[in-house]
């Protein structure tokens, strides 16, 4: 049994001595984020004269470069796979070369010799008794770098956590070691505002129990973690983990029990966080830190079921092209691992690739654009985009036509840009000339209800959107001729596009429509429709329903009516008016159950039922005993 500390003495030198052997013209890799070897870099920066023509290669730096008056200052050139705030300022001085590349491709770039690395500068933990140091908080590219770099120099820092996975490297691999005794750099995401919080809530609303998450670097995806504390058995398979993960673990939300691979373990490639996170991962076999190409390869990602990948974007055009690394001419961020995770999550069973963005920039311009402009780089192809989430709701684009995409994206754009976007979409031929968007408010996740019907099936009742027209047509064609006749009081072979829009593209103020849907959000089937149209003169609303035959008699009409009524009462609508054909007995029964004072009259045209709501405020109308309305507010 080996128990003596491993002797690192023979290779131990000062930082100045370690970097003195670096030759002019060398290409030098510096480890990622919080593992940046700051003393080695500082020694190189302060060398007089320093070696000429050094080029640093990095994925992401957060604390590597010397700062002068809040700006990065370096004597050397930098080749970066991600333009973070530290690198951003170097572009103007011509010291930055940004390489747009999916990060999981970088190891191949290195091992193929297309990007030779002369020197690797890393920060590692002290060795164990057998002489293995840990790459600590940043494994990511380091294993590949250590395979190709001619020279490897490491700072040995007792504060660096020893991580499990593939993070161990024997001291033999290093040519020089520098002792450092300083806290590992920390990274805290800047606070986000109210708008980003709303986006985060929408994201959280579509993450199911048992999902496996990739969080990425964006502030909004990290904020979304805060709203997942009521979930169960989440898993983590992510390029990066942050302090948000610690919160979820402490809340008992992360078990990894349902992961298809690396069950019960959190898989990451690097972390950006505080000492709290570093203490948690230190010598913790519950975390596996693996090379970036193992974590982020689309095939590996797709092996996880219910994989959720969240990417924050700068902009998106109406066809779904996503701008992630260049916005308005400036390179910022990077392709990073987004493409791999998006594709992997798309192929994962029940996976959800999510692109999120606030609907406008800080100066109010729309991030949803008719066309991306010169200087906006496409990082994610339109064919790879599934969910798009803004503070105005959730659009699902995959498999949708250009018209459907444009309409869905206009619906989640900021209301003050919707008319202009619609006009542009018409001009581009993306949507019909007679298309309109009635709603000027955010899609209300708070109005979504999960309802358990008499037959035991759970359905979601939610507000209708303009982009529901196609699925609503499907509902119409499943109705029997008799259902159609009793709904429209005439035979209708097909609903025109405009008629469909009347039933779903509503302003949610005077015209209101709810739909009952089953199936996952990305593949919903509409099984019921309920709408009301307010007569402003009487303050009474005419209501109408369509229920697909297989759900008739299951209490769906009652549930839809309850939602409509609650919504109407909260808006001080005086009551409902039902126009019913005498032979439509199920509708007569439903109308009779409306809340309030119900009066009925009959003439040649049919039965007219008026339900005047009792003065009970906006309380939910009673449901039959057989109904179990859970009223779970999904985004709460």
């Amino acid at each position, binding site marked *: 049994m080996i128990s003596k500390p491993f002797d690192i003495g023979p290779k131990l030198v000062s930082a100045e001595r370690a970097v003195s052997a670096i030759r002019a013209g060398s290409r030098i890799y510096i480890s990622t984020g919080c593992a940046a070897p700051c003393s080695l870099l500082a020694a190189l920066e302060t060398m007089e004269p320093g070696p000429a023509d050094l080029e640093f290669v990095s994925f992401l730096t957060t604390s590597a470069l010397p700062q002068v008056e809040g700006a990065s200052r370096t004597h050397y050139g930098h080749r970066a796979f991600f333009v973070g705030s530290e690198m951003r300022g170097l572009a103007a001085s011509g010291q930055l070369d940004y390489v747009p590349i999916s990060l999981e491709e970088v190891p191949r770039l290195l091992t193929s010799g297309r990007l030779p690395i002369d020197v690797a500068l890393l920060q590692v933990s002290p060795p164990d008794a057998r002489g293995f140091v840990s790459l600590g908080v940043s494994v990511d590219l380091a294993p590949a770098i250590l395979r190709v770099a001619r020279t490897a120099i490491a700072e040995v820092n007792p504060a660096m956590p020893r991580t499990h996975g593939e993070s161990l490297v024997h001291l033999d691999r290093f040519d020089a070691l520098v002792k450092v005794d300083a806290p590992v750099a920390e990274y805290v995401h800047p606070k986000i505002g109210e708008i980003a919080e709303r986006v985060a809530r929408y994201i959280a609303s579509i993450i199911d129990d048992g999902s496996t998450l990739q969080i990425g670097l964006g502030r909004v995806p990290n904020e979304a973690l805060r709203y997942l504390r009521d979930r169960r058995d989440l898993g983590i398979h992510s390029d990066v983990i942050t302090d948000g993960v610690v919160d979820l673990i402490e809340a008992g939300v992360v078990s990894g029990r349902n992961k298809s691979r690396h069950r019960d373990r959190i898989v990451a490639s690097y972390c950006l966080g505080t000492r709290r996170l570093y203490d948690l991962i230190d010598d913790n076999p519950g975390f596996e830190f693996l090379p970036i190409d193992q974590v982020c390869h689309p095939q590996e990602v797709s092996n996880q079921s219910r994989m959720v990948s969240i990417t924050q974007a700068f902009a998106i055009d109406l066809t779904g092209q996503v701008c992630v690394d260049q916005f308005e001419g400036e390179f910022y961020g990077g392709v990073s691992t987004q493409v791999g995770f998006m594709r992997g999550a798309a192929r994962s069973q029940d996976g959800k690739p999510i692109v999120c963005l606030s609907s406008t920039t800080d100066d109010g311009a729309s991030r949803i654009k008719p066309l991306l402009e010169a200087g906006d780089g496409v990082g994610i192809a339109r064919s790879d985009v599934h969910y798009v989430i803004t503070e105005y709701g959730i659009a699902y684009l995959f498999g949708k036509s250009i018209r459907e995409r444009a309409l869905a994206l206009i619906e989640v754009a900021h209301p003050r840009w919707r008319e202009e976007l619609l006009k542009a979409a018409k001009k581009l031929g993306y949507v019909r000339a007679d298309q309109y968007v009635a709603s000027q408010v955010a899609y209300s996740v708070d109005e979504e209800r999960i309802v358990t019907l008499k037959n035991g099936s759970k359905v979601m009742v939610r507000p209708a959107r303009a982009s529901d027209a196609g699925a609503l047509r499907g509902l119409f064609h499943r109705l029997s001729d008799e259902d159609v006749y009793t709904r*429209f*009081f*005439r035979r209708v072979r097909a609903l025109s596009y405009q008629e469909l829009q009347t039933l779903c593209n509503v302003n949610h103020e005077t015209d209101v429509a709810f739909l009952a849907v089953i199936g996952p959000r990305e593949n919903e089937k509409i099984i019921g429709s309920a*709408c009301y149209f307010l007569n402003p003169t009487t303050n009474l609303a*005419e209501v*109408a329903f369509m229920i697909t035959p297989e759900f008739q008699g299951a209490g769906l009409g009652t549930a839809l009516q309850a939602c409509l009524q609650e919504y109407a009462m909260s808006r001080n609508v005086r009551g409902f008016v039902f*126009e019913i054909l005498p032979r439509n007995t199920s509708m007569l029964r439903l109308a009779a159950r409306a809340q309030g004072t119900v009066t009925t009259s009959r003439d040649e045209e049919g039965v007219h039922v008026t339900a005047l709501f009792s003065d009970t405020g906006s309380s939910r109308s009673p449901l039959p005993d057989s109904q179990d309305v859970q009223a779970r507010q999904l985004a709460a």
Partner: protein
Amino acid sequence: MENRRTHQVDEFKLVDDHGKEYTVFEYQEGTEKPSLKWIKAGPSQFSLSDGTAVDKLDDNTFKIPTIDRVLHRQL
């Protein structure tokens, strides 16, 4: 939206005494509610697809007056 107009509201099959089948269209004057419900505002008119007028005798019996032929609903 509630302008009065004439609309085809139904279509059904009738047969004469020789078993010949006819398709009859029902038209009504009326208005359409915002909910797309049709509210009739007058008597129905019936015709064949070629425009030949059909008279309604009762719910199940119709007549083509120009050729004096009685038609019945198929039960």
